[in-house]
């Protein structure tokens, strides 16, 4: 029986990251989808950074940014009494940034597809912006929300480099499933590595299949 601790930790990390990114990514994606600001390309580029940077680069900067010597890190130590680096909280912060494009890009495309027309219609029917956003935009962009959440969750599950740099390999705190696989291979426990790797492989395929199936259904509906 393999140790299920790392699997559970991965799921906790992915779920927390997904929820936080839904809260942070939705306004950001809406702004990107509707703004005429000149800052838009810069913000879009920044959002897409995690897609191209090696995770070690992100991990390295996060290690410095969150370390006890930094402003954020020392503030965290003062408030909670614990360091951010090599902790679950640190992992969450790094993951939020690392998975940002997986939340923001599908949402932005979904919001662009919805457009401003339904919002104007809702406004002409006495709905305030917040009312119209939740009663019209969110339901119309529900496929985007589903894709974005599923991709964010899956991408966080599959994270390795950033986790290793920021979190290290502490059982029950930062040893997520990908780290556990690395650990198995290092200790030549190929059987354990096989079980977890195959599990992740099937999980990832199932997630992508789900996303593509949902999106192609959307395309059929649109015509």
């Amino acid at each position, binding site marked *: 029986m393999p140790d299920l601790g790392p699997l559970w930790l991965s799921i906790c990390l992915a779920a927390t990251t997904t929820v936080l990114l839904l809260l942070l990514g939705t306004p950001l994606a809406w702004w990107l989808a509707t703004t005429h600001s000149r800052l838009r390309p810069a913000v879009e580029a920044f959002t897409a950074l995690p897609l191209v940077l090696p995770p070690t680069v992100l991990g390295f900067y996060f290690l410095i940014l969150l370390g006890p010597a930094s402003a954020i890190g020392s503030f965290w130590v003062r408030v909670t009494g614990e360091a951010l680096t090599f902790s679950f909280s640190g992992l969450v912060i790094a993951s939020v940034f690392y998975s940002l494009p997986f939340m923001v890009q599908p949402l932005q495309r979904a919001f662009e597809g919805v457009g401003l027309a339904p919002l*104007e219609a*809702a406004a002409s*029917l006495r709905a305030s*912006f917040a*009312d119209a956003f939740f009663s019209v935009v969110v339901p119309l962009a529900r496929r985007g929300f589903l894709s974005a959440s599923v991709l964010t969750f899956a991408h966080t599950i599959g994270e390795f480099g950033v986790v290793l740099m920021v979190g290290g390999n502490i059982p029950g705190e930062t040893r997520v499933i990908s780290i556990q696989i690395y650990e198995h291979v290092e200790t030549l426990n190929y059987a354990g590595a096989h079980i977890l790797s195959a599990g992740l492989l099937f999980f990832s395929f199932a997630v992508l299949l789900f996303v593509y199936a949902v999106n192609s259904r959307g395309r059929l*509906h649109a015509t």
Partner: protein
Amino acid sequence: MQPETQSLLQLDVAKVYGDFELNVTTSVALSGVTGLFGPSGSGKSTLLRIIAGFEKDVSGSVRTPDEVWQDSHSRLYVPAFRREVGYVFQNARLFTHLDVSGNLRYASDRSSGVGPEWDDVVSALDLAPLLQRSVAGLSGGECQRVALARTLLSKPRLLLLDEPLAALDSARKHEILPYLEALPGRFAIPAIYVSHSVDEIVRLAERVLVLRAGKVHAQGNTVDVLNSLESENEFAAADSATVLEARVHKQLPDLHLTELLFEQQSLFVPALPSHQLGQRVLLRVHANDVALATSSPRNCSVRNVLAGQLAQIQEFPGSPFALASVDIGGVTLRARLTRHAVHELKLTAGAQVYALLKTATLADRDL
């Protein structure tokens, strides 16, 4: 007809985008239907969007009798959802995640005060059979009926209609027009109706505001404004037309006709069964459809013969045609004739003539 109140929407607005400038200073009566008319790109839809509150970046002001909606000097801007204005879009903009009754409930759940009630609106627009349908399965005409109902259920104090027929084919227009015609009277909500179709304006609006290149070109009573626009277009005599204001005199159901009275003379038009006796009807008569005779014709199939006096004959050198203006009780009716006919009949100003209008040409061909 309700008495004309002095309730006015005062507009003093300017907006520049690209090389187009909208600059409108006028007031619109908040009663009955005002047509906002002009060619494409004249700024009608932009003006309507400004009134609705969809355009924040506007210089100048928009005022109702009880409230200032927008004023760039005091940086005041009342957002669209607080203006109690209903907007019917060209392409309906129904919410596709809701069914028909869901769309209607979206409006009724958020409205308050006095105004059209659910049962009344559903029956006025014949929506009972559609309520459970999904929006995706509706025809263009059905979508517009649902959109109208949804807007009415928001209990607006002012109804803005942005070319609600433009996206529909001719048959669908015929399906929606009777509803549009009946609504202002039934629900007593003032409306501004944007269109580039003269025929729609004639049929629906009692007042008209004409925009050209972003400015007010003409404004006033529909008959006067449209007739003055027509005469300006003399060179385009082929398109010339006259708007006549007649009243329903008698229904002739056996013949499928309605008899109208225009300046004490009878006119027979295809039946208008929903019209009351005495109700006003505007007819747009194209100069091409009018023939003239020097004596009252006998043994002739044309039912509509209007006696009048020839006021003017304008001949176009190098063209086979002339444009005759006939005065009928103070209204000028135009007829496009051949110059050949003008000479043979010895038509000159001041002569007594009879204008002949075929009933078939008085059907709403363009609608």
